[in-house]
Structure formats: structure tokens, C-alpha cells
């Protein structure tokens, strides 16, 4: 049954101009009892078909919020999108009706969450939860959907899938659960996957297996992938380009290898230098001083200035634009040249 309702929504624009996903100037804020928290302040993300974008940053840098805004699963209220556009295959998702967006979720773009145990419904069998995708999006019968679920579980290499399809999430190991999350996200072969720290909650030994599986299936299905992570090692292996976020802004974007060779923003540099390395055994680890900013009181000028070793007066007054380093690189630092060459 190929004619999904999702395709009906997207058919308005058959040929795709530009990128698969193009987030432009996105702004999100949260209203709390103590004031307005500006979680995302003009973020641009671009992902082409078949490309992997890695998004790096500390908690509160706005990476997860951006991802949820793209998926359309932000809790509103308290969240509010105050500006920008999210173009998916050239169409602005923010201008769509909710029922249209719903059809894109799962079928056009899908999301993998960090904690598979809490992200799977504890009282429904994994077969039900996987099959639900086909029942809802393709109107498949429950019996066929179950067969599909077994097929998917096989595909993510869960042993004895046919027997385990009726089991519940808590009966699987952490790695197996995350495979089920991946199977669910890939079930309708979407064009874009957003993986929000997909391996953080797993044991180190299974992290690599799950990541490899995700990367392999992504290649097979030629999907775009947004990988939100703080594991710089994973990034080097699977990503094509990197966006580093800080206080709801992008501070640097670059092709993956350039950034490792020579960062163009002091924050990126700090992140890279804080990786412990075996050849530096015995030396003190580098640490970025200070705390991430309070999103209700983001410092004026460059948000990173209170923690930046290179900060000058101009950093405390003028917010840096995204300077063009070269055709593929951008850096939001007044002194990117000094950083790049220093």
C-alpha cells in the first residue's frame, strides 16, 4: 500500500528544491512562572538527503528543543515558536495545519529518543507499538501490521523476533529496546531521522553496536540524519558536518574533518581540548571555566563571553553574526580568524 496519506500531503511539491530539511532563524521560548526562557534564538540547520548532521552542545543549548520543534512535538504551552521557518522538502511546516503535520511525523520524518525504556509504552507489547505505525499511517490490518513488526525486528537484528513480538518493553535489554526504537523510527522509511542522543543511555559496549546499526540502515535507506550527541568520537565516524550550539544559537558549523583539525570558535576549541587523550596522560585535563548561561538572562553581546578566554570588550556589547569562514564553514566569533590560526 504505497499511497500513504503522507505522500498526499507532500505531493504539492513533487520535485524538491534545495535541502531535505532547512531550518531558518528558528526561535523558541518557554514561559515559566519565573519568566521567559529563550531556548532557541535563531538557529539554522540544513540537512540534505543522505547527509548526516551532528549537533553538539551542552544541556540547555537548544539542540533537543530545536529537534522537537522540527518534529512538531514541542509542548505548547509552555513552549512557543516565536520566529523562523522549518522547510521540509521545501514546504514550511510551521504554516501547515496540525493534521497535515501529523501525517508527516513518522512517515516523512521520525525521531529516536535517548531513553528507550521510558520512551516505549510500558503496557503495550512492542509488536503493537511497531505495528501501530502501519495501522495508523497505511490503514493496514492488525494482523498484517504484526507481520510487519516481526520483519522490522528482524531487520534491526533482534533474535527470535517472531517469539518476542508479543513481549513488553521491560522484558528487553537496553540495547534491544533502543533497536526497537530504531525499528519504529525506520518503519515507514522516512526521509529524515532525528536521533536525540540515541546511545547515551546505553552501556558502553552496546553503544557502538547500536550506532553502527543506525548508520548502516541510514545508508541503506539513503535517509538524512540529524544526530544530536555529545560523543565526539561517534561524530567523527558517522557525521558529514557538525553544528555546535551554545545558549540557543549555532556558534560554529563546519564539515566534520575541518572542525577537528582547526576549530573556528573558542567554545568548539574548548570542547575538543577537554577530550582526555591517552598521549597526555598525567597532564591536567582542560576544562571550560564557568557555567552555561541561565536562559532567562542570557549575557548581552556574545553569550559565551563570560567563559571565553579570548573575550574582548566588543564581545560584551555586540552579538557576533555567523561569519563566513569559507564556503562550507561559519563561525559566530568576532575573533574567528585568531581562533582558527591560533
Amino acid at each position, binding site marked *: 500500500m504505497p499511497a500513504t496519506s503522507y505522500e498526499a500531503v507532500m505531493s504539492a511539491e513533487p520535485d524538491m528544491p534545495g535541502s531535505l530539511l532547512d531550518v531558518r532563524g528558528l526561535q523558541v521560548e518557554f514561559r515559566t512562572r519565573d519568566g521567559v526562557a529563550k531556548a532557541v534564538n535563531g538557529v539554522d540547520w540544513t540537512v540534505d538527503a543522505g547527509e548526516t548532521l551532528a549537533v553538539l552542545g551542552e544541556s540547555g543549548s537548544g539542540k533537543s528543543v530545536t529537534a522537537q520543534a522540527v518534529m512538531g512535538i514541542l509542548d505548547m504551552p509552555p513552549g512557543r515558536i516565536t520566529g523562523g521557518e522549518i522547510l521540509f522538502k521545501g514546504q514550511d511546516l510551521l504554516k501547515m495545519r496540525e493534521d497535515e503535520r*501529523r501525517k508527516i*511525523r*513518522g512517515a516523512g520524518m521520525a525521531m529516536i*529518543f535517548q531513553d528507550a525504556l521510558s520512551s516505549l*509504552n510500558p*503496557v503495550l507489547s512492542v509488536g503493537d507499538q511497531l505495528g501501530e505505525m502501519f495501522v495508523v*499511517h497505511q490503514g493496514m490490518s492488525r494482523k498484517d501490521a504484526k507481520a510487519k513488526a516481526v520483519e522490522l525486528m528482524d531487520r534491526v537484528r533482534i533474535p527470535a523476533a517472531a517469539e518476542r513480538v508479543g513481549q*513488553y518493553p521491560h522484558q528487553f535489554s537496553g540495547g534491544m529496546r533502543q533497536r526497537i526504537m530504531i525499528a*519504529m523510527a525506520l518503519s515507514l522509511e522516512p526521509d529524515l531521522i532525528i536521533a536525540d542522543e540515541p546511545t547515551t543511555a546505553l552501556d558502553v559496549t552496546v553503544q557502538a553496536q547500536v550506532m553502527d546499526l543506525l548508520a548502516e540502515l541510514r545508508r541503506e535507506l539513503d535517509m538524512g540524519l540529524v544526530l544530536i550527541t555529545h560523543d565526539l568520537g561517534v561524530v567523527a565516524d558517522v557525521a558529514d558536518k557538525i553544528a555546535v550550539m551554545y545558549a540557543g544559537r549555532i556558534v560554529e558549523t563546519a564539515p566534520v574533518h575541518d572542525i577537528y583539525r582547526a576549530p573556528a570558535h573558542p567554545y568548539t576549541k574548548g570542547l575538543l581540548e577537554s577530550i582526555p587523550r591517552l598521549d597526555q596522560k598525567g597532564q591536567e585535563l582542560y576544562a571550560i571555566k564557568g557555567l552555561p548561561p541561565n536562559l532567562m538572562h542570557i549575557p548581552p553581546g556574545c553569550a559565551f563571553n563570560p567563559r571565553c578566554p579570548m573575550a574582548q570588550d566588543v564581545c560584551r556589547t555586540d552579538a557576533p553574526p555567523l561569519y563566513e569562514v569559507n564556503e562550507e564553514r561559519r563561525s559566530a566569533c568576532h575573533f574567528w580568524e585568531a581562533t582558527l590560526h591560533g
Partner: protein
Amino acid sequence: MGRYVIRRLLQMIPVFLGATLLIFLMVNVMGDPIAGLCGERRCDPATAAQLRKEFGLDMPVWQQYLTYMGNVFTGDFGTAFNGQQVTELMGEAFPVTIRLTLVAIVFEIVIGIVLGVVTGLRRGRPVDSGVLLLTLVVISVPTFVTGLLLQLLLGYKWDVIDPSVSTDARLDELIVPGLVLASVSLAYVTRLTRTSIAENTRADYVRTAKAKGLPRSRVIRRHLLRNSLIPVVTFIGTDIGALMGGAIVTERIFNIHGVGYQLYQGILRQNTQTVVGFVSVLVIVFLVANLLVDLLYAVLDPRIRYA
């Protein structure tokens, strides 16, 4: 699962014996069962002694209890002092109270859950605050006051219902008494459902369900409600016993001839066998209801089932 059920059944036995013993002691030690028999006057000592012997009241209390329990297990709940079998009284009273309890449970389920879901999904809105305040008021006003007020308004002032229920206790007559009986629990169910829904709407799996592109109605029905209602179902289950025991007030107000009425008469006349018999059955109902709730819990929540 089977072993679990057996363990629970075994656990019920000491609780049942303890609770009935407690009631038995209360009735026998605290009061003189003979005193009620001779009406207002004091019994003359000879008659009293004969009556005691006749009812086995000259034995020590523990022996009386054992004899009584032995009889109960053969289905003999004894005789009320007016000569009627206690089982006969039960046969008349329990159907009425069960009907009343059923009406109350239906109210709890329908109104309580609906209000809880509505307010849980609209936290902080005027509907939510209004219903929350209302539940607090309902919890605060004792059942007998609610009952008397509804009887006053609906029965006397507006003449919508008959202020006292006929001996048949038809279902339609029991609607208002059922609502009165349910009122406090109803408010608890509403609050419990609201809290549960509110907690679960923020759960990760609900976010996943949204991310899967499920329609909102399906997210709520299949994912949110299924999880949120587990504690509510257990509350309602355990409430069955409490409702039947608490029916005594409602039955008094609306003059319903159910368990509460018989118990009240039994207590007034200090009729041990009636009181202990009825209370024992109520304790059994309570324990069985609790057992069923635990089993139901396991059915609803696979994490318990396979634990």
C-alpha cells in the same frame, strides 16, 4: 501467577480471622448481648441466665468465637434473636446494598473518570480549577449532610424524587442515594485521575506516540488513558468494600432496607449474631475485592505480570 494467587489467598485468612475476632470481641466484651432482649426493662436474673445458656453465652469468649466460626463455615450464621435466620436477613439485605453500591460505582467510573480526564488534560484552565475546588467541597461536606441536603432539595422542595426509597429498592429509586454514597469517592476518583493524567501527559512514551504521527485521539485513548487509569481502577476496586460498609449512612437517610439498615437494627438491639455475621461478610467482600484488584493490576500492567 497461580502461586501469587495462592499466596494472596493464604494471606487473607489471618486478616479475615483477625478482623472478625476484633468485631466479635467488640460486640461481646463491650456490651451485654442479653440486655437488648428484654426491651427497656432489665432482665430478671433467672431468665438472663437461661438465655445465656441457650445462646452459649456462658462459655468463655474464645470458645464462643470458635463455635461461631465453626458454624459460619458450615453456612450457619446463627439466628437473630427474633427467630429469623441471619442468612435470611442477609438474603434480603445484600441484594439491595449491592444494587446501591453498583449505582455508586457506575457514578464513580463515569463522572469521576470523565471529570478527571477533562481536568487532567486542561491543567490550570478555569475548568480545572473549578472542578478541583468542587471536589474539595464534596470531600469536605460529610456524606450525611450531602444526603440530607439532596433529600431536602430533590425530595421535598422540587419533588423530583421520593424522599424515602420503597422496600423493593428499584434501581431508579437508588440513583440519588447512589450518587450520595459515591460522592466522596467520586471526588477522590476525579482528583486521582487528574493527577495520573497530568503526570503521564509529560511521560516520554506519550511524546513518542506524538512523534509517531498518531492522531491526538489515539494518543490519548491508547497510550495516555491506558496507563493513567491503572491506579484509578485499583482505587475503585478497593472502594467497593468501603462503599458497602459506608452505605449505612446513606441507607439511614433514604430509609433503604439494606445491609446498613439491618446492621443498625442489630446494633440497636445488641444482636451479636446479626452484627458479627454481617460484618464478617463485609470483611470477606472487602478482602475479595482487594484480591481481585491485585489480579486486575497484574492484567493491566505487564510489568507486574512478569515481575
